[in-house]
């Protein structure tokens, strides 16, 4: 079974440009999450999709970030315009179990996209 995949693995862009990150979750996983780690900081939650709906976007830093999951399959995270502080590693994760299930459902992470904004 294929794991969570992310594209690109690395992206280097100029400040003010736009970048779109893509995440393909494990097939059949309804839950999809985005996280990021900026330099020297901890991994931080960005948002959570259940199928195509945004369940929790409390971690999105500002309106320059737009996440979509049309059709409930893959997801994209667009940063427009990119700023220097957006540099970091962006992780995507997916899981099968819904909100009502216990215990904390296992999240499978992708390898991440390393974003560098110059």
């Amino acid at each position: 079974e294929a794991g969570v995949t992310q594209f690109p693995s690395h992206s280097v862009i100029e400040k003010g440009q736009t970048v779109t990150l893509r995440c393909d979750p494990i097939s059949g996983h309804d839950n999809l999450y985005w996280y990021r780690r900026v330099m020297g900081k901890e991994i931080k939650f960005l948002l959570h999709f259940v199928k195509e709906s945004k369940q929790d976007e409390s971690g999105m830093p500002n309106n320059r970030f737009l996440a979509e999951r049309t059709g409930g399959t893959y997801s994209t995270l667009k940063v427009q315009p990119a700023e220097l502080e957006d540099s970091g590693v962006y992780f995507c994760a997916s899981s099968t179990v819904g909100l009502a299930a216990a215990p904390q459902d296992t999240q499978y992470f992708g390898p991440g996209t390393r974003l560098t904004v110059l």
Partner: protein
Amino acid sequence: LAKTTQPISMDSYEGQEVNITCSHNNIATNDYITWYQQFPSQGPRFIIQGYKTKVTNEVASLFIPADRKSSTLSLPRVSLSDTAVYYCLVAPYNQGGKLIFGQGTELSVKP
């Protein structure tokens, strides 16, 4: 959400048993304790999860005392490939899956 505290780094040698302790003094009744492992240039990977007492799988053991204010991840006979960052997370099962990562423990296994 309960905050976790764990050592920033640990050193070990191949073949030794490694125990990483995590403090979570404010753990709630419906919180579970989960440990993830992260290798360089990879995403975190689930290792083990528990609620109380002891849990063991093919990778590690998790010891949780009765008061649940701490937990210990035990890695038997570590090898060089166990060099990684280990995260202790605490969250309620009905939260919706958001994971709150702390700084983790950077384990370095030497030959």
